[in-house]
């Protein structure tokens, strides 16, 4: 636990010092704002629908943020060889992965908090509740964390950061469009693939509408756990190869 905390502090410090992380934050907040102005506000003026549209577009930004904040986490350490300090220290691979994940998650949460003025603007002029906003933001955090764990897994696989980003993006796209692909199938396979989908079922039908379903919550936690576990196993295999 101590090692996780030490790695968490270092990684979070690295994010806060890194121009790259702040540029990502600035660009994503700008994109979020453009979406808000261009796609969320125009059209139907029912505030609940406007809020849904906001979370619809923001979920894409959250996933992009998750991936952009994570694809360098391990790959960059391999490139610079700083990973050797961790791999030759009495630290478990799970502590390395969890420490890095939590640091990236904290920065993601900071980024999401900075966007909260937009739903608050909707609330000022409309009839939505704080709980709707909170559930929506929990959804953004979860879908962003899932993307983050996927990016971390990709980063643990390869040394090349560009390749890591490409692998992470490919996995994310497959996970997001499983639902659409499943529609072309029949039977149990279709049902299973639709439930495994990262966005259409678990985000659109639940968090985006301000509805908190336990199964959606468990789904995202399971996806995060799975990809973190895969990251740990990949690091373990490469550490002692």
């Amino acid at each position: 636990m101590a090692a996780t905390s030490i790695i968490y502090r270092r990684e979070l410090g690295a994010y806060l010092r890194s121009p790259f992380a702040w540029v990502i934050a600035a660009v994503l907040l700008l994109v979020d704002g453009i979406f808000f102005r261009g796609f969320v506000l125009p059209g139907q003026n029912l505030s609940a629908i406007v809020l849904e549209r906001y979370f619809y577009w923001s979920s894409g930004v959250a996933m992009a943020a998750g991936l952009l904040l994570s694809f360098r986490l391990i790959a960059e350490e391999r490139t610079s060889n700083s990973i050797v300090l961790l791999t030759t220290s009495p630290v478990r691979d799970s502590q390395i992965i969890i420490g890095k994940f939590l640091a990236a998650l904290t920065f993601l949460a900071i980024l999401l908090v900075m966007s909260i003025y937009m739903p608050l603007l909707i609330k000022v002029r409309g009839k939505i509740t704080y709980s709707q906003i909170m559930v929506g933001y929990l959804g953004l955090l979860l879908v962003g964390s899932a993307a983050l764990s996927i990016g971390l897994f990709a980063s643990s696989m390869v040394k090349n950061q560009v390749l890591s980003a490409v692998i992470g993006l490919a996995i994310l796209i497959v996970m997001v469009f499983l639902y659409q692909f499943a529609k072309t199938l029949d039977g149990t396979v279709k049902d299973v693939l639709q439930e495994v989908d990262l966005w259409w079922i678990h985000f659109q039908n639940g968090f985006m509408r301000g509805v908190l379903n336990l199964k959606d919550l468990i789904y995202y936690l399971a996806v995060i756990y799975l990809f973190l576990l895969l990251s740990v196993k990949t690091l373990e295999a490469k550490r002692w190869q």
Partner: protein
Amino acid sequence: MIRAKNLTKFYGGKRALGPISFEIEDGKTFGFLGLNGAGKTTALRILACDLRPSAGTIEVGGVDVVAEPHEVRKKIGFLPETPPLYTDMAVVDYLAFAGEIRGMSRADVKRRMGSVLEVTDLGEVQDDPIGTLSHGFRQRVGVAQAIIHNPKFIILDEPTRGLDPVQIVEMRKLIHNLKEKHTVLISSHILTEISQTCDRLLVLGRGRVLGVGTEAELAGTKSEIRSVTVTVRAPGSGDAKALMKKALEAVDGVKEIGDPSEQGGGLSFVIATAKDCRADVSRAVVGAQLDLIKLDYSRGELESTFLRLVEGSDGSN
């Protein structure tokens, strides 16, 4: 004590190291010498618990590297060829991180920091971001992270690589300081580096041990070729080489007399000998009425020993 037995490492189907066996006593400075690709880095990475051996056993301080890697990691400080640095961090913050990640408390790190900065001479840049430091300073930060937790064993892989001559001298001084309190393992392909800093050497070639011992042992046990260089005033008449040959024919140990070369106003002969026979040679030269100006003796030195070992290895493969 570090004890390796039949240590072997394969990358895929290719053997990179071994089987090799060696022992390193506590308090010694031990050098791994070999050409690029000889297996030095592989051996050191296994010792530092960064690589798992494919076969064989290795114990560091009585603890098995494969069975209890975390216990071994606590005893070891490792500087790989490329120092494992976070360039965004200030030197002291980085060293504090390196200490804490190896199990030190913040108070322990704080107590130890001063002496580490002093030994590595990093005081003047302690608050600077590592990314702004010169190569020499970065290398020293790399050494500092390897010693911050006061490990029993320090492993330095090519510590002078890429340093300029002044930085090399400073690094040698630093290693000499470390020798006082730690068992130090150094790898290098630079012979002078190894000969000046290490008590004992392990010569590797193509993943195999070609020789182990002190420099003198390696040269003495393996090399029969020594040389005595005799410089005499050029004789007024007669063939100089014939006169020298006649003078030395009865001297025990003389194997071959080379052609003379002019040097310092005299003629120099390099004489290959099987032992140190300077006294007999000088008496014989004076007895033959030749004016002896200078006499040098050369034992097989590390460079020639190393080359001979490596060439022997090539020949046997």
